[in-house]
C-alpha cells in the first residue's frame, strides 16, 4: 500500500453504466460514481433490480459475456474496465474478494470444503512471496502449510470442529456454516476490499446475526474495506458506517448512516426508512409501503 500515494482512493468508480442484452437496451446501472478509500465500509442499498449486484459484478469483472460495461472503475489508480482475464484473476481472491448471496450453491458440491479453501491460498501463493518472507519461509513452504492455514481461517470465522468441516463436502454443512466458509475464503489472503452481495439474505434471522458479527470481526481483523450490498437497512447498519442508496440504476443518496437514516432526502429512502420502522406504527393501522412516499414526486420514477 505504501507505493500508492494517499490521495489515490482504493476504488474509484466513475460514469459506470452496465447494460444487459443488446446495446441500446435499458441499462441496469446508469452513470454511477463513487470512491472507496482503504478501510472504509460502505453499504449499498436498494430494492431488487436497482442495479446493486450488477455494480458489484462490474467491479469484480465477473459479469457474463455479452454484457456492456461503460465508464471507469479504477483500482488504486489503475483502470479495471477492459482488463484481461489473467490480470484480473491475479486481483480476484487476493486483493479484492467477494461473498455472494446464496451459500447453498456457492461451493463446488464434488470437492471437500478444505480443498476449496486451500485453492484461495494456492492460486495466489507465488505472488504472496512477500508474505512468505515475512514468515521466514519460501513460497513452497506456504503451500506445505496450506492445511494449517485452512484450519486457521475456518477457526477465525468462528466455525467449530474445523478438522471435520475441512474434510466435509458442502452438502454436509448448514447454510450458515457454508457462508462462514465463503467469508473465510474471502478474508484468507488479507484483501484490501471485500464486496458482499446480500451475504445473509438466504439465512434465517438468528444465523444472520451470527454471520454478520463474524463478518464484522473478520473485516476489522484484516483491515479490509467493504462494499456491502443489501436491501435491508438494519443489516447494513451492523457492518457499515456509510451508505449509498441506489434506485433504478442510479445512486440517489449517500452519506453517513446517521445522516441518511435521520433525514432521508430521496422519496425512496424515506419510504425505506419508514417501512423499516414498523414498530412506530400504531396497532391497527395499515403498515406503510414505499409507494406512500411518492405522492406528488415523479422525478425518480421516469426510468
Amino acid at each position, binding site marked *: 500500500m505504501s507505493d500508492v500515494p494517499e490521495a489515490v482512493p482504493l476504488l474509484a468508480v466513475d460514469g459506470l453504466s452496465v447494460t444487459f442484452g443488446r446495446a441500446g437496451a435499458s441499462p441496469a446501472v446508469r452513470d454511477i460514481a463513487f470512491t472507496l478509500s482503504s478501510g472504509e465500509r460502505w453499504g449499498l442499498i436498494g430494492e431488487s433490480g436497482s442495479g446493486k449486484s450488477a455494480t458489484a459484478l462490474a467491479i469484480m469483472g465477473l459479469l457474463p459475456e455479452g454484457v456492456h460495461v461503460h465508464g471507469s472503475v479504477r483500482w488504486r489508480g489503475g483502470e479495471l474496465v477492459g482488463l484481461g482475464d489473467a490480470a484480473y484473476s491475479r486481483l480476484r481472491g*487476493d486483493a479484492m474478494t467477494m461473498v455472494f448471496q446464496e451459500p447453498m450453491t456457492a461451493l*463446488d458440491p464434488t*470437492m*471437500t470444503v478444505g480443498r476449496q479453501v486451500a485453492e484461495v491460498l494456492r492460486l495466489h501463493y507465488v505472488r504472496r512471496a512477500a508474505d512468505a518472507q515475512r514468515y521466514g519461509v519460501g513460497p513452497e513452504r506456504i503451500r506445505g502449510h496450506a492445511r494449517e492455514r485452512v484450519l486457521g481461517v475456518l477457526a477465525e470465522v468462528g466455525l467449530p470442529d474445523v478438522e471435520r468441516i475441512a474434510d466435509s*463436502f458442502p452438502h*454436509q*454443512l448448514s447454510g450458515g*456454516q457454508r457462508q462462514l466458509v465463503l467469508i473465510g475464503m474471502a478474508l484468507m489472503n488479507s484483501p484490501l476490499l471485500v464486496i458482499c452481495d446480500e451475504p445473509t439474505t438466504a439465512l434465517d434471522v438468528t444465523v444472520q446475526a451470527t454471520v454478520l458479527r463474524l463478518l464484522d470481526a473478520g473485516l476489522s481483523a484484516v483491515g479490509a474495506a467493504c462494499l456491502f450490498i443489501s436491501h435491508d437497512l438494519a443489516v447494513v447498519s451492523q457492518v457499515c458506517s456509510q451508505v449509498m442508496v441506489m434506485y433504478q440504476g442510479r445512486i440517489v443518496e449517500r452519506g453517513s448512516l446517521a445522516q441518511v437514516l435521520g433525514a432521508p432526502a430521496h422519496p425512496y429512502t424515506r419510504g425505506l426508512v419508514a417501512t423499516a420502522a414498523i414498530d412506530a406504527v400504531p396497532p391497527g393501522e395499515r403498515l406503510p409501503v414505499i409507494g406512500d412516499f411518492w405522492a406528488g414526486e415523479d422525478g425518480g420514477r421516469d426510468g
Partner: protein
Amino acid sequence: MRLSRLLLGRLAAFVVSLLVASLAVFLLLNLLPGDVTAVILGNNATPAAVAHLRSAMGLDDPVLLRYVHWLAGVAHGNLGASAFTGEPVAGLIVPKLAVTISLVGGGMVLAMVLALPAGLFAALHRRQASGQMVLATSQLGMAVPAFLAGIVLVVVFAARLRWLPAGNYVPLTSDPLDWFRHLILPWVSLALVQGAVLVRYVRGAFLDVMDQDYMRTARSIGWRRRRAVWRHGLRNAALQIVTVLGLQLATLFVGAVVIENVFVLPGLGSLLLRSVNGRDLPLVQAIVLVLVALILMINLLVDVAYLVIDPRLRTGRAVVE
C-alpha cells in the same frame, strides 16, 4: 464402509433386476402362439410327432417349472440349443458378442475422444462463430444415417484409396493388428454419428455447469475462466455426460446392427435378426437375455460412476452441528 455398502446394494439390485428380466423374457417368448416344435418339424408334421417332440423337450411341463429348468441351465452356462442346428446357443453367441463389443466399445471410445473436447470447445466459445461451427457440424453429423456414412467411408478408403479393408472381422486373438485395421472404418462411422449426438450433450452439460454459482465463486477466488471450468466444471459436467453415455451404449448393442451389415461384421444384432426371422426360439431367448444383462450391466456401471463422482450420493448429511 458406507461406499462398499452402497456398491453391494447396487449389485444386489442388479441381480434382482436380471432375475425379473429373465422371467419376463422367458414368459413373453413362451406364451407366444406357435411353438418351437412346429419350426423344427415343419408345417406338415403329424400331431403324433409334434406331441412326441413336445414331451421330449419338456414343453408339456408347467411354464414356471420350465423357467426354473432353463434358469438352472443358464446358471451353468447352458443357454439351450438352437432349434435348427442343435448347436449349444452359448457357443453361437460368444463369438458374435466379441464382435459387437469390439465394434461398440471402440466406436464409443472414439466418439468420446471426438465429442468431449469438441463439446467443451463449443461451450467455451458459445458466443463466437467457432463455437457455432462445432454445433452446425454436429447437426450435419446427426443428419447423416450411420449406414450412409459407412458406405461413403468404404467407397473412399477401401474401394478408392485401398488403405483399409472394406469389411469382415478378424478376431483379436488371431491377429491384433488385423483386428484393428478391419475395425477402423466401422469405428469411424459409428463414432461420427454417436459423437455428433454426444457433442450436443457435452456442450449442454458444460453450459449448464458454467452458469452455476460455484463457478462464479471459483472465478471470484482467482481461477481464470478456462481453468475454473477444468477444475470445478469437469466433475459436475461428467455427472450429466455419464448418463448420456450409458444410454448411447445401451442402445448401440442392438443398434449397431446397421453398421454390422454395412461392414459384414458377424455381430450380435445380425444374429438376433437372423434368429428372429428363422423363429429359432431358444436362440432368440438367449440373445435377448444376454442383451438385457448387458444393458443392466451398463446401468450398474453408470450407477457406480455416479457414486464415484458425486459425494452427495455416497456420504450422509449434516455431520457438524
